[in-house]
């Protein structure tokens, strides 16, 4: 394989479109004076966190001119009116509950949709929503993990303890190991809620073709093939009568993997009933109160260790707030419970979690998906052990690392994909060496002393993680060479800004031997590829990348077979470069790939120059054989799937130097370094962009972002004014180092990179702030107000919460 594009920072194909206003997002479909105008939808959403619906009166709303239809749960027929599916059941999820496409009888969080209004435009639809009257019987809201565990009130009548799921995993006997360890520590750690918060909310556009009895749906989704299957099942259509397209999607970060969202059922339903295109575009407040959140967890840790800081037993119990329903199952707490282990090998480990209901927005994966919490727990543990023993924090980590010669390493647990948690490759000691050098770990104490002498509070911290990426079950790809030599590539997996059109073209260019600019990649369009899983869990490069490589290899094999027949040689004697197939060592004997595409189809009308030219190569057909040989197909194309035995494990380490304002407790990140290992890089520019974006979200989660629910279940900061996402002024300029330990599990040796950046940021910042102020940091996010209060009350803290030798 002549490697020309793989591994290079090829500029993105997408950008010419997206920078000139020619992106096509779901809300763009059918707009403008010449567009096919779609009716628009607004939903009446519950203003109450927990209430029984007694009566819905839409009379006044019907008076609004321009209103076309109003639907409530009573109008949902058949499967559409049944509870939404539980996507990923699990034996531990013993009390799974889901909502309805439109609420039936009871609402369980502010924002749950009750009535759907379809009107000529959104303004009129909202006018009508404001005229609908709903009578409620108020029920007691359950807000927060503490209230849920107390279970004085319940979210679901038939779940008396509010516990949706309970799971225990154990390797060895952790409790006995803790009890018998020379040193033990016990503490609580917590992380608050945040959310994916893509700049484009959700959106659905549906068009019904009555004559063909078929539906075309555009959705801002991370999983178009599964949305298609859900719509077909819920609306009683054959799969072949439903097309779902994820066009340009304005960010996902996890929230758009959930499917079907209620609107993905009701919008197509309305389009079918009304015979006109219908669309709904989520506004920002709707996204806050009716999409999904993540991260809220409380943890109790007991750890036993030896004099070197080696963990002999680790016993973690945690509570995960899953909100009002569990449509996506318990992936996040499973990920926390397994990925908590990071690059370490505690001798005995026990983890137990309860996933509990509250009257708040549902919780589903947000970039990192449970890992930031797990890493926070483990890294805080490492720091505590180091402090207790008076050892350097990096030394304690080194004492616990899995070593390079121990791969594959079996952690003895079951991972999120239901497969054994076996790490495929990595080199953690080298990673730490790189990181220490980049951040200046060994030089820092002198710098800190010097700064302290002049009244400045500097601190350094680090965080390490391992991330299972690229889980199965499969992805596929289709590669199709056109008669003009250009190549059409289709994958079912979607794109939300990761540059899939670019990176998969890079792979095809190298595998097939075609110039990059001859390749067009289509993603997330069920018209082009029907079977796919979706874009989540850092799996696109691993899964679709591998599938694209395999499909390209199949295509190449056929091209060489056909060409060898024409050129009367052995396929092994041929090579393809820049779309030209030629004899190795004899480039004068050659045929363009486009002409081979013509020859691979026995029906060859001379529609174009390639077809005319190809006739010179065509041999007389054997009258005794079928024109398409047995086992062959017309056309020069290849389709293949990649299905891995298990996930591949990327890893990384972050380090930060922070400065705390002695008066205001403002937290400034002075230096931030990342070492990252995602195996072989397809496009380093894009990988780095993923890391940059992940770290920015991590900074948000570490310092600013919370979902501020009051005791009534009202989200009090449901706007960008009050939910503080980082602007450029809050995000440090990163220094990045790549380590590459290729994965042995896939044909390209790659590991996923999408989520990595966000994972250890809260842990890293906590470690650095703790080092700066000498106060234990047990809860994130840590905004300046919280830190100010913590420092102000420091004198009241018990001595074991104050670090030795440092005064606040």
């Amino acid at each position, binding site marked *: 394989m002549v490697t020309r594009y793989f591994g290079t920072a090829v500029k993105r194909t997408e950008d010419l479109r997206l920078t000139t206003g020619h992106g096509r997002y779901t809300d763009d479909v059918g707009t403008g004076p010449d567009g096919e105008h779609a009716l628009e939808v607004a939903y009446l959403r519950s203003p109450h966190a927990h209430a029984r619906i007694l009566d819905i009166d839409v009379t006044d709303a019907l008076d609004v001119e321009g209103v076309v239809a109003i639907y409530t749960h009573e109008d949902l027929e058949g499967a559409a009116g049944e509870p939404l599916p539980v996507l990923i059941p699990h034996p531990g999820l013993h009390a799974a509950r889901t909502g309805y496409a439109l609420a039936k009888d009871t609402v369980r969080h502010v924002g749950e949709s009750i009535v759907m209004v379809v009107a000529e435009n959104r303004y009129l639809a909202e006018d009508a929503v404001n005229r609908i009257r709903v009578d409620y019987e108020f029920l007691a809201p359950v807000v927060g993990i503490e209230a849920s565990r107390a279970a004085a009130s319940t979210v679901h009548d038939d779940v008396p303890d509010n516990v949706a799921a309970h799971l225990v995993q154990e390797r060895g006997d952790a409790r006995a190991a803790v009890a018998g360890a020379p040193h033990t520590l016990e503490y609580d750690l917590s992380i608050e809620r945040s959310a994916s918060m893509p700049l484009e909310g959700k959106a659905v556009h549906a068009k019904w073709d009555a004559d063909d009895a078929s539906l075309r749906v555009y959705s801002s989704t991370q999983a178009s093939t599964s949305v298609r299957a859900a719509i077909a099942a819920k609306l009683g259509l054959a799969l072949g009568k439903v097309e779902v397209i994820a066009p340009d999607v304005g960010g996902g970060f996890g929230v758009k993997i959930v499917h079907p969202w209620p609107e993905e059922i009701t919008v197509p339903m309305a389009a079918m009933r009304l015979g006109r295109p219908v669309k709904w575009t989520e506004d920002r407040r709707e996204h806050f109160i009716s999409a999904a959140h993540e991260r809220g967890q409380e943890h109790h840790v007991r750890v036993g260790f030896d004099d070197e800081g080696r963990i002999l037993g680790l016993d973690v119990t945690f509570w995960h707030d899953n909100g009002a329903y569990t449509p996506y199952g318990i992936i996040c707490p499973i990920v926390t419970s397994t990925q908590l282990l990071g690059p370490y090998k505690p001798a005995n480990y026990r983890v137990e979690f309860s996933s509990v209901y509250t009257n708040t927005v549902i919780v589903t994966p947000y970039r990192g998906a449970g890992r930031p919490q797990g890493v926070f727990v483990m890294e805080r543990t490492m720091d505590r052990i180091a402090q207790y023993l008076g050892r350097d924090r990096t030394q304690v980590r080194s004492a616990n690392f899995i070593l390079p010669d121990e791969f594959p390493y079996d952690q003895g647990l079951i991972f999120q994909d239901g497969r054994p948690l076996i790490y495929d490759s990595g080199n953690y000691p080298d990673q730490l060496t*790189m990181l220490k050098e980049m951040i200046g770990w060994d030089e820092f104490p002198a710098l800190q002393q010097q700064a302290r002498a002049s009244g400045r509070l500097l601190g350094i911290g680090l965080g390490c993680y391992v991330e299972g990426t690229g889980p199965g079950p499969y992805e596929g790809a289709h590669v199709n060479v056109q008669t003009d030599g250009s190549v059409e590539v289709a994958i079912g997996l979607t794109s939300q800004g990761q540059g899939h059109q670019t990176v998969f073209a890079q792979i095809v260019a190298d595998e097939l031997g075609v110039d990059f600019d001859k390749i067009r990649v289509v993603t997330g369009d069920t018209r082009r590829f029907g079977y796919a899983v979706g874009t989540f869990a850092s799996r696109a490069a691993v899964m679709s990348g591998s599938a694209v490589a395999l499909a390209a290899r199949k295509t190449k094999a056929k091209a060489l077979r056909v060409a060898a027949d024409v050129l009367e040689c052995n396929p092994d004697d041929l090579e393809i470069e820049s779309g030209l197939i030629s004899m190795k060592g004899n480039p004068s004997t050659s045929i363009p790939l486009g002409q081979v595409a013509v020859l691979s189809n026995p029906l060859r009308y001379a529609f174009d120059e390639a077809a005319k030219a190809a006739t010179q190569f065509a041999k007389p057909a054997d009258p005794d054989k079928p024109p398409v040989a047995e086992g062959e197909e017309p056309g020069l194309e290849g389709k293949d799937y990649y299905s891995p035995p298990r996930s591949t494990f990327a890893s990384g380490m972050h380090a930060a130097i922070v400065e705390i304002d002695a008066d205001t407790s403002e937290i400034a990140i002075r230096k931030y*370094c990342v070492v990252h290992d995602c195996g072989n890089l397809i496009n380093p520019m894009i990988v780095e962009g993923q890391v940059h974006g992940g770290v920015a979200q991590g900074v948000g989660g570490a310092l600013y972002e919370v979902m501020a629910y009051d005791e009534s279940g009202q989200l009090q900061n449901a706007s960008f004014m009050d939910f503080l996402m980082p602007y450029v002024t809050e995000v440090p300029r990163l*220094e990045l180092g790549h380590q590459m330990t290729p994965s042995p599990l896939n044909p390209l040796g790659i590991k996923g990179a999408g989520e990595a950046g966000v994972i250890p940021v809260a842990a890293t910042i906590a470690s650095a702030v703790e080092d700066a102020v000498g106060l234990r940091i047990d809860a994130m996010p840590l905004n300046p107000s919280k830190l100010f209060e913590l420092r102000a009350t420091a004198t009241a803290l018990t001595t074991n919460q104050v670090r030795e030798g440092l005064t606040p």
Partner: protein
Amino acid sequence: MSEQVRSTSRNGAEVATGTVPAGARSTVAVTVNGTHRSAEVESRRTLSDYLRHDLGLTGTHVGCEHGVCGACTVLLDGTPVRSCLVFAVTAAGHQVTTAEGLGQLDESGDPNSLSPVQRAFRDCHALQCGFCTPGFMTTITAGIAENPDPTRDEAVEMIAGNLCRCTGYQNIVDAVLRAAELAKDPAAPLTDRFTEHSDAAHSADQDADGAGA
């Protein structure tokens, strides 16, 4: 879309001063990207909806509808405004520039035919999903017109009112500097300053004493 009027009269009747003319429609004419455009809209129609839905200029994106994210930023007579907070009627008779108006590929499809800001975004990988991008590009276009030679700190300041959830901003700051460079010299080569992709070796020598500065 916050508070809404409830009347649905579509007759375009005159209304008393000081109230939102419920359902009143009028023809709003705006010069958009140098072209005269008009559409009949309700008085409460935002400029962003007018551009996107009535004129079909979907290069302007709406991220929050309350003026915080900046995705909908367009240039109104050359000045950046949040088009979700401007009524279309108030833009009547003015000049509006959207992402589409910054530049379009020439017939040969040459990327260098785009504007300095558009080129810089591609050069520096300053966009991922592309949703916030139009607002950044219009903001920066006005920014470098005002300050053709920004320092890195000034570049940060220039984009400090726009939200991006994908990029972490680092490459957008680079794009501001690159755009300023291209605005002065369209043939300016793309140097390592904007395109180098880190490895430990050259990362370690950057501002090693940043914390003590």
